[in-house]
C-alpha cells in the first residue's frame, strides 16, 4: 500500500495524482503538495513511484489495507 508521500521531497508536479488509476492521491490546495487521500483503494501497482520525478518521495509497502469482515457497513 502507498504509505507516505514525503512533503520535503514532493515538488508538487501532480504526476502521481494524474497517473494513479485508482484516484488514491490528491493535491493539497494549501501546501500544493500531493497527499494520500484514499489509501484503501491502492492496488500496489507502483505507477506513482515509477513516474514521480523524485522517486524516493513515495514509499510503498507490499501490504494491502483490508477492511474487517462485518455484518453490514
Amino acid at each position, binding site marked *: 500500500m502507498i504509505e507516505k508521500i514525503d512533503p520535503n521531497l514532493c515538488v508538487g508536479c501532480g504526476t502521481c495524482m494524474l497517473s494513479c488509476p485508482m484516484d488514491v492521491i490528491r493535491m493539497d490546495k494549501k501546501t500544493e503538495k500531493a497527499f494520500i487521500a484514499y489509501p484503501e483503494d491502492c492496488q*500496489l*501497482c507502483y*505507477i506513482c513511484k515509477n513516474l514521480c520525478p523524485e522517486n524516493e518521495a513515495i514509499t510503498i509497502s507490499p501490504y494491502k489495507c483490508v477492511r474487517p469482515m462485518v455484518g453490514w457497513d
Partner: protein
Amino acid sequence: MQLSGNHTGGEKISPKEMEGGVFMTSDRGDAFLRNSGPKPISQVTQDEIETDVLVIGGGMAGIFAAIKAKEKGLDVTMTVKGAIGSSGMTPFANTFMVFDETRGHQREEWIEKFRKSGEYMVNLDYLDMFLDDSKARWEDLVSWGAIGVNEFGPVLRKQVLKSGVRTLERVMITDLLKQNGQIVGAIGFPLEEDKMIVIRAKATIMCAGPGGFKPNGYPISSVTHDGDAMAYRVGVEIGGKEFVDFHFTNAEHPADSWFNWYTHHNGINRSETPLSGKMPVIDNPRQVHEGMIPIVFLLPPWLKEPPPGGFPNASLIGKEIIGNAGAGLGIHKSEGIWPANEKCASKIPGLYAAGDGLCSMLCGAVYTGLGTSLSGSACQGARAGQAAAEYASRAKKSVIVVDEFGRLKEGTFEPRSRQKGFTPAWVTQQLQNVMMPYYVLLLKKQGRLEAALENIEFLRDHLVPKLIARDPHELRLAHETKNMLLNAEMKLRAGLFRTETRGSHIREDHPVRKDTEWLAWVLCKEEDGKMKCVKEPIPVKWRPDLSLPMDQRYWYTLPGEV
C-alpha cells in the same frame, strides 16, 4: 464533513441545510447519517460537449482509436477514468506480438497455432486483422518514441495530446445515450466535482477495457467492465464470459502485484511466439482441488527460451504462487461487446468497440501467446477509429430527448443524494467473498455456480439500490460495484450455460470437450428485464477436422476424452 454523532434518547433535531443537503429528523431521535456530504441532484452542475467521435478509454486501444480517427480530420474527444496511457491494464503490458513475413513467419502456421491454442473459439476474421496490421502498429509505436523507454505511458499520452484530440482525464463515463436506435453519445462525471458531463457524439468507440473484481495480485482494480455494462444496458450482447484469466500472484506478499512484474518492467518488447502447447497453469485448479498446495510456478516445457524482454513473473519461477489474481477477468481479447462485423462495429449504429472491451475472440478459450493482447488492442483501436470516423462523417447531428437524459442523470447521481445506505467498499467485499474462491471461478460445478448466482442477484437487487457515495470518488466506486456485479452475473450464467470443459472454462461436472455440441460461443443478452444466454455457433468453415483424434485436434487431451 462530520456530523456531531449519534443522537439518542428522543432528542429533537431541527432540519438545517448542510452543504446543500437536508439533515433529517427522526421520531426516535436516531439521525446519524451515513452520507455526511449528500448532494441533491438538483445541485449537480452540467457541462456539455459536442464532438464527431467519442473514445471512451485511454489504454492502448483508445489511444490508437483516437489518433486514427483524428487523422481523418474530425473532432475527436477521449475520456479516461485515470490518465491516458497510465490507466487500465495497458501500463502493465510488456510484450507486443508482431507477425512479420520478412522475418520468415508463415501465415498458415500462425493461423493453425492460434486456432489450436484458442480451442477453435478464435474468430478468424479478427485474426486476419491482427496478422495484417500488427507490424504497422508496431512501427507506429516506434515512430512515436514509445519503444525503448521504460515508461511508455506518458509518451503515448503526449502523442494523443499532440494529435489534437480533446481529452477529459479523471472522468468516469456511466451511460451511453441511445436515441431512435442509435448511440448518440454518453454521460459521466469528473472524479473531483459533483458535475454531469454530457457528450453528444455522432460515433462512440468503447475502449474501456475488461475488468475484474478488484483482485489482489494483478493490478486491474481500475477496470470494472464499465464498457460491457454500458453496452449491455442499451441492448448489446456480451460474449466470452465463461472463460477466465489465469494470472497468479506470489504467496509471500499476494497483494504486492507490481513487484511480480517489476523486474520485467522494461517497456514494450516485440515478441513473435504464438503458443505451441499447453500452458501448465491450466492444471492448477484441479491440482489445488486435490489439496496439492503449494503450487510452484514452472515454465512450460515447450517454451525453449523466454520472449524478448524476459518472461513476466520470471522472478517467481520455482516459487509458490496463488491463482485467481485476475479474478473476474476473462481471456484477453475474448470478452466484451459482441461485434456485428469484422470492422469493430457493434449491432447498434453509432457504437464501435476495440481492445479488451470488444469480444473479438482473437485469443479464443485460452491466451494464445504473449503480446497478443497489446498488439491486438492496437490493431483493433486503429481499425475502430477509422470505421467510426467514416460513419461520423456521414452521420447527421442528433437531438437528445430531455426526459431520457433526466432519468440517466438521476441514476448516475442517486448514491450522492442518498442519505443512508451501504458503502460500495462493503458491497464489493461481499462480491469478492462470493466470487474469488477457486471453486467458483476456476473450477466450476453447477451447485456452486447456482449458489453464487443466488448471492450475486441479492447484492444486485437489494444492496445496489441502497448504495451511498460520500463524494465523487466514492460515486465512482458505487458505479464500479454495480458494473462488477453485472459481470459476476454474466460469468456465472455463461459458466452454467456451457456444459463442457474448454480451455480456461473448466467444469468439474462436465469435464471433457464436446465438439459435437459446443463449437459455439456464448452470448449474454437482456430479454424482458432478465439476462439470458444464447449459443452462437462458430462458422462451419472454422471448425476443426472432426475426424482427427482429440490428441491431434488439441495440444492436450482431458481425462475421459475419446
